[in-house]
């Protein structure tokens, strides 16, 4: 699916990366522990998390991820959004909880 479809499925707000919504994605992972994200790298291109600090963007960047979805209606501070924009990573925010957001994407064909 494309990031645009993620936006639609999760009823998400786009925080940055509006010009990259047509990017194709195939896999995702959900975690509030960046250490675990870094430990179980495969080729996930989307990170769903409730954590808001700049190291979330850094972690995504190191793993060549394309999109971060902040769950539970969370929004990071502006410097985090600026960092993501600079790195070309799309940031989304959804009101849905982590489990629900992951479930919706999984049942709609996004792999783990």
């Amino acid at each position, binding site marked *: 699916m494309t990031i645009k479809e993620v936006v639609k499925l999760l009823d998400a707000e786009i925080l940055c990366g509006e010009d990259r919504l047509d990017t194709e994605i195939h896999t995702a992972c959900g975690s*509030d*522990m*960046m*250490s*675990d994200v*870094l*430990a179980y*790298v495969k080729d996930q291109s989307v990170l769903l*998390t409730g*954590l808001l*600090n*700049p*190291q*979330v963007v*850094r*972690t995504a*960047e*190191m*793993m*060549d991820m394309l999109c971060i979805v902040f769950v539970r209606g969370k929004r990071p501070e502006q*410097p985090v959004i600026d960092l993501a924009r600079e790195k070309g990573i799309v940031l989304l925010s959804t009101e849905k909880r982590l489990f629900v957001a992951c479930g919706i994407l999984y049942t709609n064909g996004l792999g783990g």
Partner: protein
Amino acid sequence: MGECIRLEYDVDGTNFSSAGNASESVKRTLKQMGVDAASVRRVAIAMYEGEINMVIHAHGGKAVAEIYPDRIEICLQDSGPGIADIDLAMKAGYSTATENIRSLGFGAGMGLPNMKKYSDEMRIESTVGVGTTVFLRINF
């Protein structure tokens, strides 16, 4: 040995937000040099884990990366508290990180095992009260 590009960084131990700057710079350099994407990612993750460790455990330090045509050698040196039992520190899940660090998404006890997993050679030299030096070699 072949020609080598040497990059040096001061890792600021007082600024959690800037942790990862050195790894990001190395990653960008390797990409520009045309190193394959899988190798670049292994280097980025291993070095980033090391950099995070230096910031959360050791008040920062110095990172040196030497890039050869077929490999990268990274040396991470700090003057932090040192590691008393390296075998224990290498165990997945073992961590001395505080609750505060965990609330930032780190300190799951995966850093050192991860660095070993993604590198072709890893050596740790540490003296309690003096500091820790981690050497990583990753072949392209």
